[in-house]
């Protein structure tokens, strides 16, 4: 068999397995009654998304996804849950009474997206060239030349956001002590 065909078939199988894991994980995040379990399923979803990024020729972003999302964000949220947990964790992730309205809005959104996807279904987009193997060197050069200002702005944003987060969490504690 042709090597390209084998590669395509393997990619297709990998895509469908990963897509199933992503969608099931995301559904579990919404439907698990215990919020700690929901966060663990969120970590699984993000690892699957990182695997999908490998299929999309973005190895650097796959690594960042695992570090930042599956590592930092999920652990930080578990920390937050543990700081404000209650004795009974069984019903920490329940639905409000907007279920019908929410379902209708989501159905409408997905219908609109499905309509636009269906209109382009026959359009067969074939990549002009493949994404270069060594994405890191291209990304690094672009970040420090063309997107330099945005890069610095993102750095300042992170500093301000994290300092602000500490301030918000700490100020309340000081007030609580005074009271």
């Amino acid at each position, binding site marked *: 068999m042709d090597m390209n065909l084998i590669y395509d078939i393997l990619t297709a199988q990998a895509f469908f397995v990963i897509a199933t894991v992503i969608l099931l994980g995301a*559904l579990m995040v919404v439907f698990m009654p215990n919020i700690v379990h929901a966060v663990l399923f969120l970590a699984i979803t993000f690892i699957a998304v990182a695997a999908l990024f490998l299929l999309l020729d973005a190895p650097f972003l796959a690594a960042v996804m695992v570090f930042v999302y599956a590592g930092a964000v999920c652990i930080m949220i578990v920390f*937050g849950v543990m700081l404000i947990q209650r004795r009974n964790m069984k019903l920490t992730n329940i639905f409000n009474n907007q279920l019908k309205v929410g379902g209708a809005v989501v159905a409408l959104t997905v219908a609109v997206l499905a309509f636009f996807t269906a209109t382009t279904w026959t359009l067969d987009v074939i990549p002009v060239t493949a994404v270069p193997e060594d994405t890191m060197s291209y990304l690094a050069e672009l970040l420090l030349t063309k997107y330099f200002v945005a890069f610095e702005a993102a750095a300042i944003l992170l500093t301000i956001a994290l300092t602000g987060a500490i301030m918000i969490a700490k100020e309340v504690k000081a007030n609580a002590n005074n009271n």
Partner: protein
Amino acid sequence: MLTTISLTHYVVLSALLFGIGLFGVLVKRNAITVLLCIEIMLAAVMINLLAFNKFITPMDFTGQIFSIFVITVAAAEVGVGLAILIAIYRNQLTVNLDDLDWLKW
């Protein structure tokens, strides 16, 4: 059709994931779950960006650069969001979004 993964497959996956995230944002009572579901929506957006990066502009890396900024902003958002939730919980002893309506009227 099943042997080749086209741009449409990625767009459909991204749309479904976005729908699940949006559903969670709208119907969950716990504010932390709403944060989680916003992260799911952002992941869906990133799948879209990277798919279009691969199929439309492979040499420009626009999608990958924008994904990096999406990850940065999402990390900042989770940090500030959690800090606000902890502050609210210390003041009000609840993170139930149905109870947090003092700014509404």
